[in-house]
């Protein structure tokens, strides 16, 4: 019950926040940006506000956090009090500070992973759609096969082979995600490559790279951005699930996915500690997708008018 009341209060509070943020944005934004800001639904304003806050928290983590990321500053599981606003974790580290540093690490890793997955996946997908023929067949069948392997187990295999440094983690999750991106990019690009302007460019004798960069990518961006939003958030979950299965991020680095895992048992006793990192992930997921939905809506709206 308390949770529901809390949620209701949070939603009620977020509406004026989003409203105020939109007003501020309209004032502050340069002229050509002001129109979309005015046009923005409250959900998107809320999403942008949250993302902005996360970015600020991530950027200024050392300034904002009351304690260092990894320092043991008390006994384990201290309750919330004046010194440790959100208590301490299982090793006696300040929970709030770890959440703040977690923003930096988690968002950074998730962004790097997703960006990599999108660069690789969408380029290959567009290339396959553009070239068609045997190249498309070989790539698509191979991706099909990879997708037929459960992603978590595949990631587990790869991480066990290559080790669990942050770089490997990023590479492996990106590789697994890239297969999904490939599929989407390919199908979107297949819709684009039949357009006359692609035919015109081909007949002009343009190379693949020009076609991908100038002709296809800009037109395939909207659905890819939407997918980016979801995939970005799924990276946290993958890290969390991997850490459930005994892999994951290198301690003592704070990241939300592992923090959920580390403290998850506490929920068995009704302790809300693990809800904090989980809530941080959920809030970001919702925020990112609000913004993505708005961008998609804008993209489709503009298309109708054109």
């Amino acid at each position, binding site marked *: 019950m308390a949770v529901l009341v809390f949620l209701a209060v949070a939603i009620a509070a977020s509406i004026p926040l989003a409203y105020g943020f939109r007003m501020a944005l309209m004032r502050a934004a340069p002229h050509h940006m002001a129109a979309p800001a005015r046009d923005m*639904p409250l*959900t998107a304003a809320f999403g942008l506000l949250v993302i902005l806050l996360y970015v600020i928290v991530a950027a200024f983590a050392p300034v904002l956090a009351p304690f260092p990321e990894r320092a043991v500053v008390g006994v384990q599981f201290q309750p919330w009090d004046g010194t440790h606003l959100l208590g301490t974790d299982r090793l006696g580290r300040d929970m709030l500070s770890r959440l703040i540093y977690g923003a930096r690490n988690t968002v950074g890793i998730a962004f790097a992973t997703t960006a990599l997955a999108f660069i690789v996946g969408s380029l290959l997908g567009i290339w396959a759609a553009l070239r068609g023929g045997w190249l498309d067949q070989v790539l698509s*069948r*191979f991706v*099909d*096969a*990879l*997708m*037929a*392997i*459960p*992603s*978590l*187990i*595949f990631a*587990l*295999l*790869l991480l*066990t*082979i290559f080790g669990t440094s942050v770089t490997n983690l990023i590479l492996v999750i990106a590789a697994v995600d890239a297969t999904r991106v490939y599929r989407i990019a390919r199908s979107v690009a297949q819709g684009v490559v039949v357009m006359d302007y692609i035919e015109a460019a081909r007949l002009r004798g343009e190379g693949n790279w020009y076609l991908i960069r100038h002709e296809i990518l800009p037109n395939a961006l909207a659905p890819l951005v939407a997918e980016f939003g979801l995939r970005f*958030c799924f990276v*946290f*979950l993958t890290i*969390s*699930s991997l850490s*459930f*299965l005994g892999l994951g991020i290198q301690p003592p680095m704070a990241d939300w*996915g592992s923090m*959920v*895992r580390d403290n*998850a*048992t506490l*929920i*068995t006793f*009704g302790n809300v500690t*693990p809800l904090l990192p*989980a809530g941080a*992930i*959920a809030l*970001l*997921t*919702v925020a990112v*997708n*609000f913004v993505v*939905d708005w961008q998609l809506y804008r993209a*489709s709206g503009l298309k*109708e008018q054109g």
Partner: protein
Amino acid sequence: MNAVLVMIAQRLALGVLTLFVVSVVIFGATELLPGDLASALLGQTATPETLAALRTQLGLNDPAPVRYWAWLTGVMQGDFGTSLATRRPIADMLSARLGNTIFLALYAAAIAVPLSLILGVLAALWRNSLFDRVANAGALSAISFPEFFVAYILIFLLAQSGFFPSMVRISPAMGLGDKLYVTFLPALTLTLVVTAHMMRMTRAAIINLLASPYIEMARLKGVSPLRIVLRHALPNALAPIINVIAINLAYLITGVVVVEVVFVYPGLGQLMVDSVAKRDIAVVQAIALIFASAYVLLNLTADVLSTLTNPRLMRRK
């Protein structure tokens, strides 16, 4: 109809190719894993002598291609071989667990698919309303919690109070009602995990069509909004919806190892993770093939259904 049969045949052939690639990838990856079955079985107790003896006994001394070939020829004759770790026939080991996995997947799907369709249709109908926003945010929140955490919360809320068991103890002798009761929590967990995706896709696929001329036509014919969504938009949005359902069903079969662990559910995922840890390649391969087949067949089914529900593809001019 003939075209559909040809398509099925082609896709099955491609599916076999996919399975082959999967088996090579899995075999290669398992080979690359540090250690082998012998060292995994003996663990820290391993000594060079026992390792050598065990390797000889298990036939691990042959080069990898020879072992792969032996496995492949066995599988082609329908023989999955025996687990090297437990020395039981793999087919026996898998059958009960496969049944469990499919049961749980179907159970979760039976809740999740109608639920997400209804929510998706309503969200499309009342798009940009409060309902739409709340359903959307709720669904996104549900998928942004890790599965095991959703499971823990459900256990805390529904098992500790005694409504449902916190762990699944399932036996073949159980009646369906009991089975449904004891597996309710894992099914609910999975429902929460997959509903969001399907719901959002349903909503998006329908809204995507609402700008179509035939929808405008229906509105100009005085058709009510609900009827427009159900009768005019939904049948045309079926292909992407069927596809996303297939993907999620495949996930329910292949991707639920975490939920299996939390609810102590004897499914294939746990067996696969264990077998990877033990380097029991034959078992890993067999499960990988089952998973890949599920994926291939579900995708094929989705495509066939999309075709069957699309008169343009079904009835030529």
